[in-house]
């Protein structure tokens, strides 16, 4: 692959956070040719976290979520083309064909096509009043619909469902959370912590039901309720489905790139075609802290992996994405941060007393005593220390880890 030169054109497909960070990476690495960013939405790239939080409650306006203001794209010489859909990629002729038939030639291409909400195949999902939450339009539509007194049922007790539940309570809605698994945030945290969050939401007035499998949505034109497999019914004016996302791999598959549950990339974001890169939620990548490859659905990945992919695309040879996975969720004003993706049967060590309220951390240790993950509830500094312990392969003394009087910094340095 020849070095990138100034008469070349780099095309980025996807105007989300990853697309926005990728073009930043391209310029950061010194590429001074043409850079075109194609986004489907009418909005310039924005970050998604506020969509289920401050934007949803009306505490923040949509523009506050913008990744960059318009002047930035101009100053960076980025040709930002919004409301533009790509139809297909023609790898042989190195061009993409837009849905309106226009063709754009590229020397290198980056796909940041993101993901879309999974919608379960349930009777009634097509009814009016059934929402998903992924983009700004979804957030604004839900914000409009969540009037005080409305009855809101959340299908799925993961981050999205729970953040929407918190917003719904704040707006004065009657709120029910329906989670099929035995505990909340099943994919992210230990069941004891999921149960702590169930109590938190109940204390704020939500009806939280775990082990609740949805059979169908009720109603004629508009949704009127949810029926569970045990026959029980929950009346609802609004149903929000938050059961995960699936990557938008269609363009990649059509182009013959290796893709399945995500576009396969290396640690520089390179796909099976050396002139095509991919970034963000849509990628499936190696990660030193995970067995095998992983698709990371996170703000961190959409930022840092995209920066790496953009730089690598522009010829930077020394960058690689190997971040320890990190996630956060804000519910009822409480900040939950998670590092690592512990699997197997890790040992749990609690630091601080969950019964006393927020301000505690749950650590996960593997059989060898190595720290492999942590969930901090309103204790962000523990996450910063835990991250470094995991990165450095520290085996902290579990008794000291459990003692909030022992400094995490000392444990990190092995002085605890």
């Amino acid at each position, binding site marked *: 692959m020849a070095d990138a030169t100034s008469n070349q054109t780099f095309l980025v497909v996807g105007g989300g956070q990853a697309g926005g960070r990728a073009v930043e990476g391209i310029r950061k690495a010194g590429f001074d040719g043409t850079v075109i960013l194609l986004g489907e939405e009418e909005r310039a790239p924005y970050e998604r976290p506020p969509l289920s939080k401050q934007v949803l409650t009306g505490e923040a306006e949509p523009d506050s979520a913008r990744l960059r203001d318009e002047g930035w794209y101009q100053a960076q010489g980025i040709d930002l083309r919004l409301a533009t859909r790509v139809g297909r990629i023609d790898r042989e002729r190195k061009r993409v064909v837009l849905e309106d038939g226009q063709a754009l030639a590229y020397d290198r291409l980056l796909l940041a096509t993101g993901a879309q909400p999974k919608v379960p195949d349930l009777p009634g999902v097509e009814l009016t009043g059934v929402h998903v939450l992924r983009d700004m339009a979804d957030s604004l539509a839900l914000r409009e619909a969540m009037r005080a007194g409305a009855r809101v049922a959340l299908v799925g007790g993961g981050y999205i469902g729970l953040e929407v539940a918190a917003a719904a309570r704040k707006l004065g809605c009657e709120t029910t959370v329906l989670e099929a698994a035995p505990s909340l945030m099943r994919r992210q945290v230990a069941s004891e912590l999921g149960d702590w969050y169930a109590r938190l939401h109940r204390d704020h007035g939500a009806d939280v039901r775990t082990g609740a499998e949805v059979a169908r949505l009720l109603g004629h034109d508009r949704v009127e309720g949810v029926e569970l497999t045990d026959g029980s019914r929950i009346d609802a004016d609004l149903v929000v489905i938050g059961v995960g996302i699936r990557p938008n791999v269609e363009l990649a598959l059509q182009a013959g790139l290796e893709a399945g549950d995500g576009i396969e990339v290396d640690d520089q974001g390179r796909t099976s075609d050396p002139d095509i890169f991919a970034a963000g939620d849509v990628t499936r990548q190696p990660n030193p802290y995970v067995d095998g490859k992983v698709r990371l659905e996170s703000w961190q990945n959409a930022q840092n992996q995209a920066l790496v992919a953009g730089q690598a695309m522009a010829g930077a040879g020394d960058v690689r994405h190997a971040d320890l996975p990190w996630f*956060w969720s804000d519910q009822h004003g409480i900040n939950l941060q998670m590092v690592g993706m512990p699997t197997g049967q890790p040992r749990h060590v609690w630091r601080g007393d969950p019964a006393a309220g927020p301000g505690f951390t749950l650590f996960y240790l593997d059989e060898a005593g190595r720290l492999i993950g942590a969930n901090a509830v309103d204790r*962000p*500094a523990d996450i*910063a*220390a835990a991250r*470094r312990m995991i990165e450095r392969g520290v085996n902290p003394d579990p008794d000291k880890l459990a003692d909030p009087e022992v400094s995490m*910094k000392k444990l990190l340095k092995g002085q605890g």
Partner: protein
Amino acid sequence: MADDNLEWHAVTKASELEEQEPEHARIGDTLICVVKLEDGIFAINDVCSHEFAQLSEGFVDGEEIECPLHQATFNLKTGEATAPPADDPVETYPVKIEGDQVYVGFKKQA
């Protein structure tokens, strides 16, 4: 910066600062983060330039402090943003120590 252009505000005792452990202070409406490093005591504005968060609740690693919310980092000596998502620096303030008292200097209002 000559001392006579500054107003000095007492913020903490030097003996109460632990190396690499940030402390916060407030001068008027301004939130300040004070950190003792190997080679001195440094003061920066406590509010992350990316989104509201108090840096003094974050983690100090070497000369850098990491924001507790989104992991942006800032150099404690220069205020420079050294990792995304922050782009803009945070303000730095001169520090002087008299006896055990740590003072932070603000420019006098004209």
